């Protein structure tokens, strides 16, 4: 049963990522097309533009939510690929624990940075 829920979560996070990462990709890469439609982002990767976004709590929340769903989707997908090699039960446990630890460390660090720098 547990694997069914893990897979269901994979589908749900997939849909969430398609929406959130879609916003992120359009903002970062389609700025010239957005300008044509009247949305002016003037170089979203510049320090000035990034600081403006990182001072708004709504953007920090969106990025941290995106980080959480992406990490789940990516690391669960990687685990599924590794488990297709039919490792032994012991190796499977090691893989699962390594991936969970890896995910927690990345999430802690990469969500700490925008929160710590929110008002700086």
């Amino acid at each position: 049963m547990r694997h069914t829920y893990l897979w269901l979560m994979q589908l749900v996070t997939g849909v969430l990522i398609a929406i959130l990462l879609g916003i992120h990709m359009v903002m970062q890469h389609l700025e010239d097309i957005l300008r044509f439609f009247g949305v002016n982002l003037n170089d979203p990767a510049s320090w000035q533009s990034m600081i403006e976004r990182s001072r708004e709590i709504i953007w920090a929340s969106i990025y941290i939510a995106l980080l959480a769903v992406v990490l789940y989707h990516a690391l669960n997908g990687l685990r599924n690929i590794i488990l297709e090699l039919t490792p032994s039960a012991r190796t499977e446990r090691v893989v699962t624990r390594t991936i969970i630890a890896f995910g927690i460390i990345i999430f802690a660090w990469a969500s700490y940075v925008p929160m710590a720098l929110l008002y700086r």
Partner: protein
Amino acid sequence: MRQIRPRQNYLGVGGWVWAGNYKLERYLYILHRVTGLGILLFLLIHLIVTTFFRIQGQAVWESAMRVLNNPLFKTGEYLVAVAFVYHALNGLRLILQELGFMMGKPVPPIYPYSDSLRKKRRWTMAIMGIIIILCLVFFYDFIVGGW
């Protein structure tokens, strides 16, 4: 006495790149896996850049952006955009087909066989068309923005 041997369709790890007797969907699955692993690799690099350089302040961030602003990294970014578009839309197709949409009715396996995915392959082709159009849109923006 003649031995009846089952059809050898177990491809092992080789099935990650070569689809054997399988059809279009198997190659889409391989691409899905490759783009997924590519995006995972990019995600780790992206998180390192946007946290370690971000936390050291404006000067470090801007020098890092200058290093990344060359045709090689721009091409890499475009490939990530293409991988995202493919993985997102093919993933949408996989979700819909897993839930039973965009598929033909299952029929008894009587010769000539017909699988339910192949009957609705037009939907798959339509999604591939949308993917190509979106890739061209991203390509246009990368060209306009300068390499």
